[in-house]
């Protein structure tokens, strides 16, 4: 079993791009070796995983804990627009909302990032200048990933050149599902290199991987390849983020850090629309990976409509009554 939980590994050095972290230095020597490694990871029992998230879903988060959770969730949002109809005007209005999510309340935290298609990264960068809010751009022929490697890498370089601080790439699910793990791995390594200083989020598109075993394998693959974050979904495939998938990914980043000393972030994206959903995710983080992941540096929500629900709940906690949709801004 490759499930290594040596606590002393926590103090080990972090890894650098291109060099695999220590206990796993030779697992990518061939596709067969890599396959053996990934298939040697402990299996995931679907029923048990579902039962665990159902149980954690009954946690009752009230008063001060709820206020903390809502503000933390707001600060973790990657405010996203990924439509064919996106325009510079739309991106600017989203950027304004990212800075001041609640125009009536300056104590409301800003979001973590604004997430757009690569061609609009420059517009977002300009609109967010000086705010500390990151620009995230999807790249690598998002959302399908069906293009040549040259095109994908050019897509990444373009977005980075336009000012993207974070790149959200998609893995080649076709290659993954046919067992060409090394191809998927090498592509992520190449994208990471093309990112330069930009942070890399690796989208697994778990709705297309389907099984939780595959989610665990893809998570380890992406972490070994140097991904800074592993992300559930593009938002274009249903189901997008689900709690069992998020549970398995949180277990993966927890075990990976225990084994290598390197911490990787998690980003569920798509389908998280309510404060209740967001709080359930934070409980899951808290009781699976632990408190170290409860910051925007290590956990994000890829969402658009979620933010308004968080704001409405935040107003409710402060004023004691629910307001309506006209008390928050339309995106």
């Amino acid at each position, binding site marked *: 079993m490759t499930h290594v939980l040596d*606590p002393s590994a926590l103090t080990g050095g972090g890894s650098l791009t291109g060099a695999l972290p220590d206990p796993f230095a030779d697992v990518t020597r061939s596709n067969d070796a890599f396959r053996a490694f990934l298939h040697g990871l402990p299996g995931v029992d679907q029923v*048990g*995983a579902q039962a*665990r998230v159902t149980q954690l879903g009954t946690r009752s988060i009230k008063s001060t*804990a*709820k206020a903390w959770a809502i503000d933390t969730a707001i600060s973790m949002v990657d405010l996203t627009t990924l439509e064919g109809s996106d325009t510079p005007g739309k991106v600017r209005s989203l950027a304004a909302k990212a800075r001041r999510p609640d125009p009536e309340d300056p104590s409301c935290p800003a979001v973590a990032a604004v997430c757009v298609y690569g061609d609009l990264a420059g517009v977002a960068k300009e609109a967010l200048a000086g705010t500390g809010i990151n620009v995230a751009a999807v790249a690598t022929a998002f959302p399908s990933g069906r293009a040549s490697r040259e095109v994908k890498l050019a897509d990444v370089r373009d977005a980075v050149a336009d000012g993207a601080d974070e790149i959200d790439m998609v893995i080649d699910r076709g290659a993954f599902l046919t067992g060409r793990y090394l191809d998927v791995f090498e592509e992520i390594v190449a994208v990471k290199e093309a990112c330069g200083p930009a942070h890399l989020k690796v989208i697994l598109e778990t709705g297309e991987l389907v099984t939780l075993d595959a989610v665990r394998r893809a998570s380890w693959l992406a972490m070994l390849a140097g991904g800074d974050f592993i992300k559930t979904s593009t938002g274009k495939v249903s189901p997008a983020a689900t709690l069992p998938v998020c549970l398995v990914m949180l277990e993966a980043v927890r075990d990976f850090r225990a084994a290598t000393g390197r911490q990787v972030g998690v980003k569920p994206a798509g389908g998280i629309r309510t404060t209740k959903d967001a709080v359930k995710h934070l409980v899951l983080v808290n009781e699976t990976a632990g408190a170290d992941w409860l910051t925007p540096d290590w956990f994000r929500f890829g969402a658009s409509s979620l933010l308004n629900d968080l704001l409405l709940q935040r107003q409710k906690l402060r004023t004691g009554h629910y307001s309506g949709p006209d008390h928050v801004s339309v995106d």
Partner: protein
Amino acid sequence: MTMFEYAPAPESRSIVDIRPSYGLFVDGEFTDGTGTPLKTVNPATEEVLSEVAVGTDADVDRAVRAARRAFVKTWGPMRPADRGKYLFRIARLLQERAREFAVLETLDNGKPIRESRDVDVPLAAAHFFYHAGWADKLEHAGLGPAPRPLGVAGQVIPWNFPLLMLAWKVAPALATGNTVVLKPAETTPLTALLFAEVCQQADLPPGVVNIVTGAGETGRAVISHPDVDKVAFTGSTEVGRSIARAVAGTEKRLTLELGGKAANIVFDDAPVDQAVEGIVRGIFFNQGHVCCAGSRLLVQESVHDDVVAALQRRIGTLRVGDPMDKNTDLGAINSHAQLERIRELAAYGETEGATCWQPEGDLPDRGFWFKPTVFTDVSPAHRIARDEVFGPVLSVMTFRTPDEAVAKANNTTYGLSAGIWSEKGSRILQVTDQLRAGVVWANTFNEFDPTSPFGGYKQSGYGREGGRQGLAAYLRSDS
């Protein structure tokens, strides 16, 4: 960095109206008992909740007469479909009053409100629904062409699942046309008395269900009453043995559901994270006050260190404390006497050379508490590997091959349940076949359903409860 501290989320107790004192429920009415009343306390706070009547031989006699009358005059002759209607009505009332039952159960027993709300009460209602459906279909149960009820059932139940064990006993007895005299445990009588109110609310004919509270003497009177046709007991092996002796040589039919020392077997190809959840659920569910608790963890030696490390990390996240808080995972030990027994056996574990581990954290000042505890380096000869602790204490042992796992799992005087964790289906089937246990869970643990028969091998007792097999214990099929 700020921590995610969950604010207290206490369930309100205002939904229950606990009376200062309770009588016995005999012949459809609450009446005084002639024994010296006993006090029932909240084990989480040691607060006295109420005073409960104690039934003497004379009271038990009154209850058995009422049950006999109801059996002869109303319940026995009733159309089976009508009996089913009453059971459906009771099931619905349990659902309607679910919160009330859950809160009362947690107050009286000490178990977390999350468990009484999500497990005990819904399962109790499910048992009534399930058996209600059987009431008019008994001739199709494969128990003979025209199975007949036995008569009056004397039932004695334990304190670990007060309402659920009541449902396991009462629902099949009534569905098969018997009437009941039930004695709840002395430390947890309150939900049974609330159930008596439900019987009144359902217009159940007087005498069909009689509830006589009290301690050991009252229980003895119930099982040894000459006009009782059937005795059903769930509890300790020691008391079960004395009941078997008392019933021997009489016409009474007997089922016993006694102790256990279940093996939870984790193979090296197990789904580790779910196995860890299952180990936690196996031994810390209901503070380990579960006869089928997975109290012996058998781990394949090659993954022992990983599994124990993952288990300890997971136990570190268990929330121990106020059972009424909706976020509590581990509640109070049910009584001071039980706490003493757990302490005694845990002390044996250390003196016999096992390694004791407990998570950090404080326990409340008042009430009865015991930290979740894991013993490693346990040998099959140690007392903590053989005796039922009936508390949150896990004994970890190792094995090398499937044969060794089976041998060690079966090396117990009990045989109630077992668990297997493996991703390999063929291994699950092969090992299950060789385990001498009434229930074997694969990649899960402590999962219950009214359709599934439950019961033991060896000193875990005899007879089955639930499912088609459970009906047989309340029917005469020799006609």
